[in-house]
């Protein structure tokens, strides 16, 4: 083999040696990020109960009454939650039209807007039972999770809602 050929070969082998672990690392990070970012579809959780900001208790039967449910983990102290508010409201409206109710809570009761109003299809929870903290592991605000009637995860997204998410979330409860 001539010298230039040898040089090319060595560079190519080096590039392959860099590529293999680099691609492996990318898959590792992608998996870690994914596993931390949302709940796997099909996972069933206990209906999210709690006490609303107005003091009304949402019982298990009330929480399981609708055909589907959307859970939003949010905070007034989170910049991205404010940025995401129009998309979230559009998603919530669309899912409520399809028979879902929505449940919203934050890391603490102080993360809930002072003017938050709970309605029959929108529950702003100030406190939740430990089962919610045990079964649903939120890592960041905002996070949105869609459940079917039996509180099985059909779609979830950590972070702001993007173009196409509304369709995906709506499709998941059909």
């Amino acid at each position, binding site marked *: 083999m001539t010298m*230039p*050929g040898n040089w*090319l070969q060595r*560079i*190519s082998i080096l*590039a*392959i040696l*860099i*590529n293999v672990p*680099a*691609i492996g*690392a*990318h898959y590792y*990070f*992608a998996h*870690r*990020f994914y596993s*931390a*970012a949302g709940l796997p579809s099909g996972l069933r959780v*206990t209906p999210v*109960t*709690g*006490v609303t900001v107005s003091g009304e*208790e949402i019982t298990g039967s009330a929480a399981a009454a609708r055909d589907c449910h959307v859970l939003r*983990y949010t905070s007034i102290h989170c910049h991205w939650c404010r940025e995401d508010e129009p998309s979230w409201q559009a998603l919530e409206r669309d899912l409520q039209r399809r028979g879902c109710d929505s449940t919203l*809570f*934050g*890391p*603490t*009761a*102080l993360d809930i807007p002072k003017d938050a109003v709970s309605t029959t299809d929108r529950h702003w929870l*100030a*406190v*939740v*039972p*430990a*089962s*919610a*903290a*045990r079964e649903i*592991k*939120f*890592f*960041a605000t905002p996070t949105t999770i869609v459940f079917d009637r039996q509180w099985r995860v059909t779609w979830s997204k950590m972070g702001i809602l993007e173009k196409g998410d509304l369709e995906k979330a709506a499709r998941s409860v059909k």
Partner: protein
Amino acid sequence: MRFFDLLLCAGLLLLAGFVVRLDFRDARSVNRLTTTTALSQAAPAAIRTLSGFDRLGKPTDQLPGGTKHVAIFLMHGATFRAEADLWNSARGLYPTMEFAGVCGDAACIRQAAATRGKLNFTVATMGDYYALRRLLLTDDGGKFMVLNRESGAIREVDTPKSSAELTRLKSILPENQ
């Protein structure tokens, strides 16, 4: 042929550069995610808002007041009676502390409701999400929290399993040092 080899080599190098750059970005994202949101030892949080009842059985939405320190522990439905007996006696041993048990499951909530007004400590059936997650982790490690209300500092102490262990906490708990 030489041109093809060069093209292939350049392509591999470009791909390596791209993927390594992607790795750095991924690592930064994962690091940011875990440091800002993970429930690590560096981010303790005590329950502040709750739904439950106090020692007298009256509804309450806050930790018991009047003392500098509050012990916050998780209660389990399967061992509720034994835990209730143990923590009932704690207030006699540590009169300068308040105690709050947080139900970790539905069975505990049912039993706590049945013993309402008969327990010597506040019982929370619900609370702040983040603080509950932190308390669950603390309990998984066999510990409970002692909150210093003035400084907001939280100390994690081994959960006593017997009256003897509860008595031994005298040397550990803040009010007794």
